[in-house]
């Protein structure tokens, strides 16, 4: 046990402590709230908190011990996200071959990120797969509805694979694990903050046709709180105060953008959640929607600041 503790450096240890104190705080809060006001509708919130415990634990196990495990975990996450997207989107039977290519792209993309081939990781999907997928569709020969498939399949890869693989790319930078923790914690907490501020102060709807529950108050409150949170997590990053403020501010906004993009997709498909695998949250995609946009943005900011 002591050996393991020696391996984990103190900054990461304090991060783990922060995560579990936040979770404990939430769980105790809901418990007491339920005792004081038994009529309050807390079942969903409690379920969400419970799922957060599980997700946080899985995430920490996947990232703390070994880089190899992290890459396998990210690849699995991409796989499940891809499967979920294929399930909800209405694709044709003729697209099966191209879908298989999408699944095969997962190990290739993570092979590039694992070995730190930066250029290959950045061009494989937007350059190579963007040609390979339409060509595969052309080879089938069914042109009825092919435009839609040509547009959907590459977009799906960008969401499920390209965005998420930046979590792996972060790990290739020195001090990358701290940055990964920073990104994931800030993005996920941004979702929570926006939700909480929206509940407390929410009045003016920000995108009523896309996401009727989101408000300006939630958005602004969330971004400010997230930026402050980022500042307090400065110890996970190599940056100075202005840099951390800029990064946190932009990441919070990118998270919001990812969230509403997936919301709009769900609205078009007339779905509430993308699946039901995470109790209280919905599907995997409902949980990582902000991350898929925030991750590339965050990575390139980091890259810009460190070079």
């Amino acid at each position, binding site marked *: 046990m002591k050996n393991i503790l020696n391996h984990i450096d103190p900054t990461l240890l304090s991060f783990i402590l922060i995560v579990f104190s936040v979770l404990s705080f939430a769980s105790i809060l809901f418990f007491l709230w339920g005792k004081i006001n038994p009529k309050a509708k807390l079942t969903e919130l409690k379920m969400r908190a419970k799922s957060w415990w599980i997700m946080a634990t899985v995430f920490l196990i996947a990232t703390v011990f070994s880089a190899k495990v992290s890459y396998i975990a990210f690849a699995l996450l991409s*796989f*499940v996200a*891809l*499967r*979920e997207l*294929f*399930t909800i989107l209405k694709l044709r*039977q003729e697209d*099966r071959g191209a*879908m*298989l290519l999408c*699944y095969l792209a997962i190990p290739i993309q993570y092979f590039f990120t694992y070995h730190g081939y930066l250029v290959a990781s950045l061009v494989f999907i937007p350059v190579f797969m963007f040609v390979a997928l339409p060509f595969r569709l052309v080879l089938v020969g069914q042109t009825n509805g092919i435009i839609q498939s040509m547009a959907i399949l590459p977009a799906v890869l960008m969401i499920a694979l390209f965005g998420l693989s930046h979590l792996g790319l972060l790990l290739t930078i020195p001090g990358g694990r701290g940055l990964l923790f920073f990104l994931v914690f800030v993005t996920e907490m941004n979702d929570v903050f926006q939700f909480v501020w929206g509940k407390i102060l929410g009045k003016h709807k920000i995108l009523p046709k896309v996401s009727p529950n989101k408000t300006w108050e939630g958005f602004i409150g969330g971004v400010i709180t997230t930026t402050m949170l980022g500042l307090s997590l400065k110890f996970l990053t190599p940056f100075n105060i202005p840099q951390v403020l800029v990064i946190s501010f932009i990441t919070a906004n990118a998270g919001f953008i990812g969230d509403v993009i997936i919301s709009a997709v769900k609205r078009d498909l007339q779905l509430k959640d993308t*699946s*039901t*695998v995470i109790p209280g949250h919905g599907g995997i995609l409902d949980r990582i929607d902000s991350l898929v946009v925030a991750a590339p943005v965050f990575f390139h900011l980091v890259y810009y600041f460190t070079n």
Partner: protein
Amino acid sequence: MRKLFLNIIYKGIVPFILKPLTGITYKHKEVLAEVKQFIIIANHNSHLDTLALMSAMPKHKILEIKPVAAGDYFGSSKMKTFFTVLFTNALLIPRCCSLKNKSKDPFRIMMKALKRGQSLIVYPEGSRGKANEMQEFKNGIGHILLKYPHIAYIPTYIENTGKVLPKEAHVPIPFNCKVIFGDVHYCKGKNAKEVVANMFNEVSNLKAA
């Protein structure tokens, strides 16, 4: 011995393959414990349907559960018969009209199994259809239930397996699948046609829910 073998397959190997391929989730699975003997009435889109249903069955009962399969397809050769029965515990019935030959009468074969106390998995569509589109139910199971009105049936809707592995495909593509079990029902209707029409509605309702 055979029970252990089937349990190793359906509680170990099959879920190991099925989970990544289909992320399968079961809804209202508890119903399987409610009655001792039952007939599962399900829609049919893929070979995966039987695997998905068999892995949902209670461990101690697995030997007593017989998926009813087309003898003319799965029993077309001795090898095929042997492996189908070995791995799926299937009850092979001829799909075509051989009512005169008693040993090949599909009704007799199924009723014999019911008399032995076995549970059946029946796909009244008769063959695999297009993904998430139900075909008309055949009347056969209605005739049987009219003779055994005390045996329960459980309408079941299977979603998306036809997308993972449709009839013509050889390579499976992962999609999220769902198996939704309905409540326990008993035969209702004056003739086979009515019984089957009721079943069809019950399965369709699960789809809509």
